[in-house]
């Protein structure tokens, strides 16, 4: 199997950390993976994007034109990259910040999750990216939730390990939100 994923948001939402976490979970599962951050002249509050490819066999291109799943964490990323999702693909939208009522894609499975609200209810709005990662893993099965939780230890610096329990909760809440 091969999974490709595009995550977009603004700098500070943890787009790159979410991509890293999903990638590391795939490493734990002994799969092949590429994590490609959008690389440009970046600034705080600017756009942040990454592409993750998870494969049992060879990854091939780390650059994906039409990803089968896209995660949109803010309005601008949907407006700018809404056309990117592959026909018939999946869009996971942070409905706390994104209004997709005027989006003209009717071929997609759209999953709306109030990620900011969920993160805030769990105590910290910065966990939006964890909610998104949990939702993606639950929706696609690209990696197991247990692997995501295990990956936190490797992806987060030692000093932030005290936040792992809260992040695990956020991952699970994101996964649970997919089914609703």
């Amino acid at each position: 199997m091969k999974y490709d994923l595009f995550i977009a948001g603004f700098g500070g939402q943890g787009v790159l950390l979410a991509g890293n976490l999903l990638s590391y979970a795939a490493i734990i599962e002994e799969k092949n993976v590429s994590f490609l951050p959008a690389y440009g002249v970046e600034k705080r509050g600017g756009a942040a994007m990454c592409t993750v490819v998870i494969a049992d066999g060879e990854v091939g291109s780390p650059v994906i034109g039409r990803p089968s799943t896209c995660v949109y964490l803010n309005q601008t990323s949907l407006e700018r990259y809404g056309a990117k999702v592959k026909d018939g693909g999946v869009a996971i939208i942070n409905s706390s910040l994104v209004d997709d009522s005027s989006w003209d894609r009717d071929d997609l499975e759209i999953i709306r999750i109030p990620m900011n609200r969920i993160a805030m209810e769990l105590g910290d709005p910065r966990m939006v990216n964890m909610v998104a990662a949990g939702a993606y893993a639950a929706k696609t099965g690209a990696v197991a939730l247990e692997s995501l939780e295990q990956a936190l230890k490797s992806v987060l610096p030692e000093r932030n390990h005290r936040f792992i329990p809260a992040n695990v909760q956020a991952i699970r809440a994101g996964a649970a939100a997919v089914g609703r």
Partner: protein
Amino acid sequence: MSQRLFVKGNEAVAMAAIEAGCRYYFGYPITPQSDIPEYLSRELPKLNGEFIQAESEVGAINMLLGASATGVRAMTSSSSPGISLKQEGISYMAGSELPGVIVNISRSGPGLGGIDASQADYWQSVKGGGHGGYHIVVLAPASVQEMYDLTMLAFDLADIYRTPVMVLADSVVGQMKEALVPNPRPVTILPEKAWRVRGRREGTEQMIVKSLFLGDGELEAHNWKLHGKYDVMKENECRQELFMADDAQLVIAAFGSVARIAKTAILMARDAGMKVGLLRPITLFPFPTKAFQEVTLRCKKILDIELNNGQMVDDVRLSVARDAEVYFYGRPPGAGSLPVPEELFEQIKKHY
């Protein structure tokens, strides 16, 4: 088996350098390669090595020349405009037959250009970027694992042939994270560095490392000697990857990052019932001429794809069988110019 890590391409270069026994690094920061000096500035002091942030790229390459002249393994890295500044030093190293590894995580040009992925330094790298008509070995990794493995190989080839060796990649391979198995340094039989300068205290004869040859016929003979080495490299050191090329009716020629993008385009073509393959040069100098000759004995269509306006395609045209057709598709580098697999698939359909 070593542990499977998850690291950036640039970090893999730095890790391989350390494993290869490199303890001396000289450089000057420039995007998108600064992870290399960042890593080495942290790790080399712990190993009693030396990390020097030079006053400029010119300073760094001359420090590399000096360190290599003493027989140690040493490295510099930079990105395109910085590599241009190093060309004089690389010519002196080639002339002085000094080993040394130079990493170019290239960016778009000409001039200051931009920081996007680019393969526009192909000519500069393989055709002798400085003055005087020389070559250096040029290795083109396409994955994080190859960033590690080819950096390791670069140090061995440099010592075996007494030549500068360049690792040429871009921000896709440099900034991308993938799985890495950090293999231990292979056991290679290396020639003794009898030529190294070691000072007079050891009581030996005076050693001189130089590129100045003024005696009658001396420089001509030196040039023939260098070019004799290039012939040996062409015979023994060509490396390439063949992917689904056996039955292909169209073979894509591509190196580095764009070869990865092409691979997915090839799989799209295969799904559509088209027999398409890939010939990926891993050594850009020596160029895998024989591999192109062999492939084009059977397959008469080559589509060369590069992140520039057409550079390697020159060498492809010089290498293929006479009756083979060579097409070219390129995107000159810059923001928004990185092609996606779907785009390359369109080119495959056009030429198949």
